[in-house]
């Protein structure tokens, strides 16, 4: 099942990347990043089956970092929303020259 898992992981990661590039809602962009992390976790777990359980340990580390990233990212979204009253990335262009 390794090949199938890696193919599914690749597909989910690509869907996440396309979502990040296409969507303009900051919250959905964040969820797409979570989907990409999940796809990587699937690769870790599938490879851990063939190469020992260290991959599962890394999957748990990825989940921890994802939780921290979600908390900080959503706090940033709240802070931005207070300033510009929107989460549409089209209107958030403070750093554009």
């Amino acid at each position, binding site marked *: 099942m390794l090949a199938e898992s890696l*193919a*599914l992981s690749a597909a989910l990661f690509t869907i996440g990347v396309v979502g990040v590039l296409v969507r303009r*809602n900051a919250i959905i962009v964040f969820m*797409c990043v979570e989907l990409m992390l999940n796809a990587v976790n699937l690769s870790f777990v599938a490879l851990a*089956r*063939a190469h020992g359980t260290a991959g599962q340990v890394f999957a748990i580390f990825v989940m921890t970092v994802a939780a921290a990233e979600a*908390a900080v990212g959503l706090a940033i*979204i709240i802070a931005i929303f207070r300033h510009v009253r929107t989460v549409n990335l089209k209107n958030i262009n403070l750093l554009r020259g």
Partner: protein
Amino acid sequence: MNEFYPLVYTFHFYLFGLVALAAAIVFVTRKSPVAAALWLVVVMTSLAALYVMLDAEFVAVIQVLVYAGAIMVVFLFIVMLLNLGTLSELGEIRGKWGRIAAALVGLALVAELAALSRAAYSLRVTVPARSGPEAIAETGGVIGSIAAPMFRDYLLAFELTSVLLLVAIIGSVVLARKRSEHDAG
């Protein structure tokens, strides 16, 4: 399960894999953030089922508790907190050139990852499979087989993760705090 019912195993593996893939596609095309979040929960739960079938029961439990539970609840909570307004202004998708660029990047990425998967598949032939129920039982059960490397080989990474979580807690409180007028300077 793999040894006793190979056909059932394969059927359910493909079933949950296809559910995850379909739910991911539906997730990324939803306009409403709430609907998108709920479809993402479907993806994560299907992935948890796949983790169980890949002999990673503990990771599956953590996936349901932390991802499908905690993180998605935080997302839905933020959607509720922000009161984003009507759907028509929410479901904005980039214009034609953005979509074409994204499609090109996606196709290139899926080709690249497929090539990588093939390479990994040919690699598997040379590496003996060390996992499975017997190997897990040898190394101290489902949780013990994860805990041993985590607290021996990766102890430094584990401690650093706790520092990272502390920083994230403080950072999110500082960022999301409402500043009063005389406090802003």
